[in-house]
């Protein structure tokens, strides 16, 4: 019985130790830099994709105008606006995710409850920014 209690306590101490473990300042700095660089790459990719999609959509509008098809112009213009809104939303999400990854890595400098709180805040901010991006797309 006593042995079981001791083992359980030991396991709890080990588990708690793992939970509250924080990274060294150098590790945090390295991981933050890595997350920042990856985030910047993803945002740049989203921007490039949006630019290309917008150019394609604008070409469709120009073609409809050249064809003097008014209904087609209206539809192509509507589609171009939708493409632009989608692109903006994707860029906003990429920016939010990039900022989230950096924030989470910074949380690693903390330990225990403050670390958990820090990560929860980062998650909450990410969700808020994703909602804003969705609203941008739906408007």
């Amino acid at each position, binding site marked *: 019985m006593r042995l079981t209690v001791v083992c359980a306590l030991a396991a709890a101490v080990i588990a708690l130790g793992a939970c509250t473990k924080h990274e060294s300042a150098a590790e945090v700095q390295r991981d933050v830099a890595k997350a920042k660089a990856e985030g910047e790459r993803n945002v740049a990719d989203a921007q490039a994709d949006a630019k290309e999609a*917008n150019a394609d959509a*604008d070409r469709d*509008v*120009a073609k*409809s*105008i050249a064809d003097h098809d008014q209904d087609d*112009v*209206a539809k*192509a*213009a*509507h589609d*171009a*606006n939708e493409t*632009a809104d989608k692109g903006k939303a994707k860029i906003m999400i990429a920016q939010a995710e990039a900022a989230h990854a950096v924030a989470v890595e910074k949380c690693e400098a903390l330990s225990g409850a403050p670390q958990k709180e820090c990560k929860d805040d980062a998650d909450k901010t990410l969700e808020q920014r994703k909602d804003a991006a969705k609203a941008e797309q739906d408007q």
Partner: protein
Amino acid sequence: MMPTLTRALLVAATLGCTALAGCGSMENRQSETAAAKKSDAAHHETAGETVDDSVVTAKVKAKLVDDPVTKAYQINVETFKGTVQLSGFVDSADAVSRAERLAKDVGGVKDVKNSLQVRKTEG
């Protein structure tokens, strides 16, 4: 009687003067045309810009038609070098600012000149 050489020189000089005068007026006309073209280019768009502007106009119109507030109005949209001009009449100041915000949000719009006016209802 004038010597033949003098007469020939006089004729040549007259012809030369006439030709120079002609050249002068041609040069003037050419420089006037060039100046006119330059001034024209300053006030008009190139073919490429016209295409872009017509695309911008179409997209702004589509945006205004898709919006529940602005779709109710006949809003004129014109674009010149990315600057969009909105004109016409709407029923509220809110509609004026909403139309401007929607236009500004369209890709390719550099500026918006808002000439929309609020139509005052009688009574």
